[in-house]
């Protein structure tokens, strides 16, 4: 066991899950929400020559995905350090 106590192990996992769920919520809202479910409504707005819903479906969601992963990498590294389970 790399953790000093059972409680710390649980706390680390809880923080991890909560971070993943938050990021997946954004992932879902941008792609399935803006790109699919709300696409018709969003299409009434224009964004640099694109209909907004269409833009989310063909460009915006992909850009968001990239950002999400790098946010995750950074936040997880901080979490690993905090609980001292990072790699030597």
């Amino acid at each position: 066991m790399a953790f000093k106590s059972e409680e710390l192990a649980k706390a680390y996992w809880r923080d991890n899950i909560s971070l993943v769920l938050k990021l997946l919520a954004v992932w879902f809202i941008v792609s399935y929400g803006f790109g699919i479910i709300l696409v018709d409504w969003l299409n009434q707005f224009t964004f640099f020559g694109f209909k907004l819903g269409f833009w989310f479906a063909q460009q915006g969601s992909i850009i968001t995905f990239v950002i999400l992963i790098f946010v995750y990498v950074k936040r997880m590294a901080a979490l690993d350090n905090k609980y001292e389970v990072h790699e030597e």
Partner: protein
Amino acid sequence: MDIQTLTFIIVGLTFALYIAIAIWSRAGSTSDFYVASGGVHPVMNGMATAADWMSAASFISMAGIIAFAGYDGSVYLMGWTGGYVLLALCLAPYLRKFGKFTVPDFIGDRYYSQTARTIAVICAILISFTYIAGQMRGVGVVFSRFLEVDIATGVFIGAVIVFFYTVLGGMKGITYTQVAQYCVLAFAYIVPAVFISIYMTGHVLPQTGFGATIAEGVAGEGTYLLDRLDGLSAELGLAAYTSGIKSKIDVFAITCALMVGTAGLPHVIVRFFTVPKVRDARLSAGWALVFISVVYLTAPSIAGFAKVNLINTVNGPDLQGVEYEAAPDWVKNWEKTGLIAWEDKNEDGKMFYSGDERNEMTVDRDIMVLANPEIADLPAWVVALVAAGGVAAALSTSAGLLLVISTSISHDLLKRTLTPNITDKQELLWARVAAAVAIALSTWFGINPPGFVAQVVAFAFGLAAASFFPAIILGIFYKKMNSQGAIAGMLVGIVFTLAYIIYFKFVNPAANNADNWLFGISPEGIGTIGMLLNFIVSYVVHKMTGDAPQDTQDLVESIRYPRGAGGATH
């Protein structure tokens, strides 16, 4: 120099490069062969993953599909990128910490069951084979057009090259070759897009050009490109470009099946075993998506430009049709390959493309990327470059898939199941033999495609979504999940998905429409339902059969934090 000679030179040069890399980085051990000894830098691994991921289908067909489907084509853009978020957040770091070579390794060890391992091996081989036959076909198509050899010869040349560096180099050789292939394919994809964007809109970046107004001297100047597309579509009886015709639930289900399937494909997952650390596994998923996005953000722009260009060329700026006699060379060049055809229905000697009874053109979607440089009248070296890019895309994906097949046989089937006593050397030999047999088989499929191969490729995602993804997710995030639950779930998921696809695609294709589909979900999207069924069945069976043993639960605990991750081992 003519296009032919230039193509020979550019494709020949890239081949020489790939082979040189393979010789330089040949594998000496099973660990080199399977996972490059876990020593690949995350940026390099990201690039290799991107090349592995982007197949001939991505390179050649995707922009074409979007050009014809408009908004509905978004399912591929979101589906084939969103899966990397799932990979990075939910799979890659934990599987890396687990530290084995293959997906069946994880399933077999996590669920302490040879039955589970065997089912996983069968799924991995099934998924990879359906995929690879399509790749070899892609190589054949590209060669037959650009080198003017017949498709069989084209497939054969491709097979020899892939054989050489997969069998020699294993994962180590493949990884570094794929880095080179990524550079070739991305460059080949973007250069024509930039040229066309400048010509159509004056924007250097195709991504912004896509949303810009049409430049002076091009039909429809001053209007937004996308408005022009919608306007043309309406006039020609086509569905509006920026809104689709597929039902919302179907778009939702297909996107989900593609995303989850991406995260469940064995040749993608295995890439994250090749980096030294857990942190690198997370990072490498991020870099992979960056490199994939470079191409995937360009694809919708190419689609838009190509569609407008095609309509302008065929129907003329005044939409009255263009005299066949006056048609540009590319129309006649591509007519020879059968990818474009003109039938003068009203006998006026003019070509006309539309979505209604006035239509006289049959246009294959693959033409959009392959002929794009010619349509936009770009220099011959750009045309040759696109050929090299298409070949790079097909070769890199074939090599990755071949490795999964050969590893499944030598490692999962022989070493872990049938003959556990073989030495490292013998196992490596078997891996090479298996790769050779797999290449021979897929070459045969590429030359004699049973009609269904091309159609089945897209369904590999549904199968991966319905089989591997839930088993791996539950294996990591639900430590009490037992072998009975996982086995039942995988079987129900894959059998249901396979049965639904086979029924609508092969048994009763006439019934393949929204009225007969379950919840209005097409066979392309049914993997989503298969995945849900897998989760439900796993949970219910687990509840009836008790928790996983304590040592398995401890194992799951230990993969949940990065400290102590060693190199991948047996």
